[in-house]
């Protein structure tokens, strides 16, 4: 057994060239073959790739999909985001618990099943959803969950759970997934039809500098939420000193409620790969990486095939389209379950086989990124827009929006929650939230969370605000909450998410989010008072101001937004005239544990009390 393990690990390391920067691929492969990366495996890997054991242990402990204790043959990861909860994930959870006889975080004694919660897997429009190993299972309920376990017990093959495939490329032989695209409104940019090779040929007719100028003229800005001008990023990367430059497409869409990249990768991967190739030409890079989140592993074989087809058509590889000297190829780097890897410097660390912790900036990736080379990290959607800019020209592209200054083109929104038609809507920048809600059948919403938990919570009075960089800038997540929902519960769940996903490096984020949640929960349980609101504001400001990266700088947003726009949600839970007074301390509850340990009856302490008073 030990010899066998040794052999497997040696093979895996060799297949990655014993390269320590490929540690992510190595530990993922070991996890898949051996069900865990235990102490012994860490030693063997460290020796094989000539690194320190702590580096391997650090990676294994960082990523949610890796484990140092054996997981079951089948790992069921049920999505625990708030949208899935609204769709009834707790009933699914209950069914799974009772069928398997284990709780979440546990493995059945026969080693066949592990049950786990996982943050948003990008299936909010078909919630509740789970990953069964790599296979997404959507629109679950307690009946289908029970049936799923019965079937799995018989064949132990998750792929057989798919009895009916979804639309579009979800039915492709290499995907064969029950996931639905729910592409409700295809716009003229990202989801417009692609003519393979057209954009690249047009780019090659220009000089790289002209390509960058075209992207600038089109006023294209990053679609991941921050909105940094893409042309400027490329210019910096092109100008930076360094032989090896890199393009990375960020497909680690982990912001809860976002699933646009999933549909883009399923239906328009050619548009993305063309954009990456054009970016490579523009900045002078010959290597591209698609960082694909582990939750979308089911798309990997299909994407590899698209890449192979592009190589066959000379749209990737050496001397692309017959242009001598223009060599560019793309590899897929799989993630392993970490929200923070959507942050570009954390993503680069992850690509290099490290823990996905953000780096200090400067230096920015444009100067010093992947393997120390100048690196442009772009969102999947942004790179798709690049292809469109080249197809139609920057002038036409910049007129595709509704004329809001500073925002050209369209935005893909992932709409989920309390609306009649959840799914993907590609709308021109400048569209009002109200018309988006009308389209999706969610006009009666009591609140809308735009941009995911770290984004903005919008009240009905603001529904005329526009989706654009200068007003409602968003990575694409739109969560709709009806009047029936308890907003403080939503806030509390969002904080759960940030607590789970904080990398723990800096104290304000690691500790601050826990304190925020504790105080919000205190208010939810009617033990709060008005001074708690000041406390929350002050603490939220501190966490925002002093955190090291975007996670902590935005995690208090749900608290601040609800305090500002929905103060009633808090004050209604507070005692009347309780201004400044604390709810009475629950001594009975606080001494319950001690009473159990020393076997003291309740009368005892009451008797003493009476003695003292008498």
């Amino acid at each position, binding site marked *: 057994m030990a010899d066998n393990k040794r052999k497997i690990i040696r093979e895996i390391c060799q297949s990655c060239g014993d390269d320590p920067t490929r540690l992510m691929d190595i530990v993922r492969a070991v996890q898949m073959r051996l069900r865990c990366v235990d102490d012994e495996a860490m030693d063997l890997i460290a020796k094989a790739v000539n690194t320190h054991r702590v580096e391997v242990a650090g990676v294994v402990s960082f990523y949610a999909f890796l484990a140092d204790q054996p997981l079951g043959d089948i790992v069921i990861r049920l999505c625990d985001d708030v949208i899935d909860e609204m769709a009834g994930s707790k009933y699914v959870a209950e069914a799974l618990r009772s069928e398997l006889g284990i709780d979440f975080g546990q493995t059945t004694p026969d080693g066949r099943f592990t049950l786990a919660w996982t943050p948003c897997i990008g299936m909010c429009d078909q919630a509740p959803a789970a990953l069964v190993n790599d296979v997404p299972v959507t629109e679950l309920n307690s009946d289908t969950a029970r049936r799923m376990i019965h079937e799995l017990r018989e064949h132990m093959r998750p792929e057989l759970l798919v009895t009916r495939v979804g639309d579009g490329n979800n039915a492709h032989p290499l995907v064969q997934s029950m996931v639905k695209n729910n592409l409700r409104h295809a716009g003229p940019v990202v989801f417009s039809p692609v003519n393979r090779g057209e954009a690249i040929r047009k780019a090659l007719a220009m000089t790289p500098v002209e390509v960058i100028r075209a992207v600038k003229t089109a006023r294209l800005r990053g679609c991941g939420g921050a909105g940094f001008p893409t042309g400027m990023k490329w210019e910096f990367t092109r100008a930076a000193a360094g032989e090896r430059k890199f393009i990375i497409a960020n497909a680690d869409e982990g912001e809860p409620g976002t699933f646009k990249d999933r549909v883009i990768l399923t239906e328009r991967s050619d548009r993305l790969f063309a954009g990456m190739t054009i970016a490579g030409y523009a900045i002078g890079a010959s290597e591209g990486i698609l960082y694909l989140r582990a939750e979308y592993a089911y798309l990997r074989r299909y994407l590899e095939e698209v890449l192979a087809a592009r190589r066959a058509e000379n749209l990737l590889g050496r001397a692309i389209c017959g242009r001598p000297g223009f060599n560019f190829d793309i590899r897929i780097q799989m993630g392993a379950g970490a929200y923070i890897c959507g942050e570009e410097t954390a993503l680069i660390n992850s690509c290099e086989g490290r823990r996905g912790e953000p780096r200090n900036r400067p230096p920015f990736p444009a100067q010093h990124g992947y393997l120390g080379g100048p690196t442009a990290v772009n969102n999947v959607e942004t790179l798709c827009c690049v292809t469109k800019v080249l197809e139609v020209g920057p002038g036409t592209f910049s007129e595709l929006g509704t004329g809001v200054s500073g925002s050209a083109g369209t935005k893909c929104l992932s709409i989920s929650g309390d609306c009649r038609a959840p799914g993907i809507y590609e709308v021109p920048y400048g569209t009002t939230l109200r018309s988006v809600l009308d389209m999706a059948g969610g006009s009666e919403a009591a609140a809308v969370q735009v941009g995911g938990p770290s984004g903005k919570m919008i009240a009905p009075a603001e529904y005329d605000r526009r989706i654009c960089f200068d007003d409602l800038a968003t990575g694409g997540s739109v969560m709709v909450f009806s009047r029936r929902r308890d907003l403080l519960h939503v806030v509390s769940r969002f904080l759960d998410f940030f607590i789970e996903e904080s990398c723990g490096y800096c104290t304000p984020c690691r500790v601050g989010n826990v304190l925020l949640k504790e105080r919000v929960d205190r208010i939810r349980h009617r033990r709060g008072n008005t001074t708690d609101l000041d406390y929350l504001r002050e603490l939220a400001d501190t966490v925002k101001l002093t955190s090291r990266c975007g996670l902590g700088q935005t995690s208090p947003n749900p608290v601040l937004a609800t305090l500002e726009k929905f103060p009633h949600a808090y004050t209604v839970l507070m005692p009347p005239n309780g201004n400044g007074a*604390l709810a009475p*301390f629950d001594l009975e509850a*606080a*001494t*319950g544990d001690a*009473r*159990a*340990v020393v076997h003291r009856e309740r009368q005892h*302490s009451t008797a003493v009390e009476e003695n003292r008073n008498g």
Partner: protein
Amino acid sequence: MAKPKVATTSLAGCFGCHMSLLDIDDRILQLVDLVDFDKSPIDDKKHFDGPVDIGLIEGGCCNEENVRVLQDFRTHCTTLISVGDCATMGGIPAMRNGIPLAECYAEAYLNGPSVHNPSGEIPNDPELPLLLDKVYPCHEVVKVDYHIPGCPPPADALWQALVALLTGKPLALPYELIKYD
């Protein structure tokens, strides 16, 4: 006009903050001119017999008795001040908060290296106050008006705070008095 009254107590603390208060040295004579001590270990007065202006609390709440004393202080004191890190944050005693209470009892009464307890029982005399599930800072039990940090707060910080409160003048706490690293 009668002098303002000051009461003090030590809950789950080490009396270090009280020692620090005594460290104001001969200024204690000035303090006595300014205030009367009410219930306090300093004059050994055991019970409140009327309202008090300022209550100084050392230590957090680790057992039911601490909670009752603190509530008693809140009832009787116009202004309540948490003095020192145990009162403001739980301090050293709160290090047990991550350990299950049963393990704490077992270490203290059964398994500790210096424990001699042939009966193997955990004492359960009604006079022994029950431990709380965790150590609470004072402001989680009652409303606290001011917090003075430090372990212990320097005598000068206590002096400045008391004088400012008693004279109604703005509090001057130079950086040296609140810098702890």
